[in-house]
């Protein structure tokens, strides 16, 4: 399909998702009197979020270091007709406040948008600050939508799309220093995967920070004569079943790439779809082995786990032999 170009210049087009997302949040709060923004000691002592915190005392809140409160307060604002965005460190949001997500967002079925930052291993702060479980968790909670944008610009598109989307959404953003995948405009729809590169020999289905690295891998493989497609599976739930089935039928070799525990994540969800559809295809899952990775920044961990372009290319090549 293609139709647009993707970014192939390594770190040159690096974006800062947090800044871009912050700018978008500020814009939404200012433009839409129904948008609220709730943080957990992330307002900052000065800066753009602090400014709106001062300016809109009943619509821009900071609950302090109290993630459980954050989630339920957001649910209550949604019940009152507001569109709340609640943002904090991923692990404390989706693990510590899981009871609140399960009951107050999902069971009560209220349109809260949770933004969990530092997705996967991107924090570099060790297992307490890594978030490696949320795909599996959110996938098994009824009413939830789970999104993992791959770059800052997609975050912005996703925030816009979320304004009118029903029910609760968990948005997983990485550290915020990921290179841009896309450098031209494109249509973005929650639940609709994007084929960022066509290919006939195999398909990499990637999400979040894995999309950029998968593209790098596909380029390396091109040089070695392997024509690999890359799909940006930005929505984990509801998963785009058609895209998976089509890819399986077209190439027969699927590789999933995610910065998430290998168990219960994108790879497992893709496997579910394949089995249920009865489509014969081979599947290789690239993800975090079922273990706690104690030390290291993503720049080191990604190559170590084979998540970087060359690492993914090596795995794909072996798989397609």
């Amino acid at each position, binding site marked *: 399909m293609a139709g647009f170009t993707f970014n192939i210049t390594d770190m040159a087009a690096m974006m800062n998702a947090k800044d871009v997302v912050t700018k978008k949040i500020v814009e939404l709060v200012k433009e839409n009197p129904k948008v609220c923004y709730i943080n957990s000691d992330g307002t900052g002592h000065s800066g753009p979020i602090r400014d709106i915190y001062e300016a809109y005392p*009943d*619509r821009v*809140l900071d*609950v*302090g270091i*109290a993630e*459980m*409160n954050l*989630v*339920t*307060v*957001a*649910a*209550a*604002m949604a*019940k*009152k*007709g*507001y569109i709340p965005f609640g943002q904090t460190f991923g692990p404390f949001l989706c693990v510590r406040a899981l*009871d*609140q997500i*399960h*009951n*107050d967002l999902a*069971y*009560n*079925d209220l349109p809260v948008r949770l933004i969990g930052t530092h997705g996967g291993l991107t924090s570099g702060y060790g297992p307490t600050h890594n978030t490696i479980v949320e795909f599996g968790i959110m996938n098994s909670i009824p009413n939830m939508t789970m999104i993992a944008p791959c770059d800052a610009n997609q975050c912005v598109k996703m925030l816009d799309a979320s304004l009118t989307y029903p029910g609760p959404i968990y948005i997983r953003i990485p550290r915020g220093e990921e290179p841009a995948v896309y450098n031209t405009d494109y249509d973005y729809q929650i639940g609709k995967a994007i084929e960022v590169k066509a290919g006939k020999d195999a398909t990499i289905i990637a999400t979040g920070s894995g999309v950029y690295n998968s593209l790098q891998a596909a380029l390396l493989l091109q040089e070695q004569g392997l024509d690999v497609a890359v799909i940006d599976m930005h929505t984990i739930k509801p998963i785009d079943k058609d895209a998976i089935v089509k890819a399986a039928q077209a190439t027969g070799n699927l590789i999933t790439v995610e910065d998430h525990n290998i168990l219960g994540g994108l790879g497992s969800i893709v496997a579910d779809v394949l089995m249920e559809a009865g489509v014969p295809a081979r599947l290789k899952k690239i993800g975090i082995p079922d273990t706690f990775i104690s030390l290291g920044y993503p720049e080191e961990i990604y190559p170590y786990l084979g998540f970087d372009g060359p690492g993914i290319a090596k795995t794909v090549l072996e798989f397609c032999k």
Partner: protein
Amino acid sequence: MAKVNLKDVPALIEKAGDIRKGICRSARYAGNVHIGGPLSATDITVALYYKYMGFDPEDTENPERDMFILSKGHNGILLYSIFCDMGMHDWHELWDNYNKIGHTFGPHPNRKLVRGIEVSTGSLGHGLNWCVGFAHANRNEGITSRIYCLLGDGEMEEGSNWEAIMYAASHKLNNIVAIVDNNHCSASFLSGENIQWNSMADCWRAFGWDVREIDGTNMYEIDKTLAALPAVDFDNPGKPVCIISNTTKGQGVSYMMERSYAWHIGGLDDEKLAETEALIEAYTAQQQERKG
């Protein structure tokens, strides 16, 4: 199904007796239900629904309404009995179809199934956090109605409560009224057997709340306390208010009060129901003898 407004205390006492009977009949006809906690919270909840909230069974979504958040969600049967009494729902739906697939009423209230329920609860320690969000939303729109939250003393062991408690006082959300039904018994322990509060009132005070500790079995005292709540004034906000309502689990039914730990959940047969209704009538008559 018009709005009910019981002005005088004897009428509220009589209504509390009716609701207690409704709860106990449910324990006969619906099967095992949570019973001790709903009975201890009956008096103050009746005073709110039949007098102070101006609750309108025909207009439960009015943005300016007072709200009642049942944080101790296992007291659903108390609200169901009030709603059935008001004609919002049918007693037979409650008694014949309790916890049945495709029906209305279950052990914990679901806001989508039971009209009148503000939020689906059941997991403890969520109600006050809901109140914080509602309080901000109302203040943002200049709505000065109150948000009442009913909690259990056992429930106060949940840490999430204290996140909301410190936040609400810090941000002067004085449109919240927290009510702790201090019935001195959780599912397993009598007060002080396990967790030591020393003084629950002091705990709330230390977090910046205006605490009023009352005899939650005395409708005159409940009435005075609710009548004397400070006005919600966003320009001169005071502290949020916590009412600690001292009761006994199973309040109104002597044999349950004596062994309250055995009556967290219970069912009654015909004979036991007849005995229980007689006890409730006697208890209600005694309450009418009390003076303000």
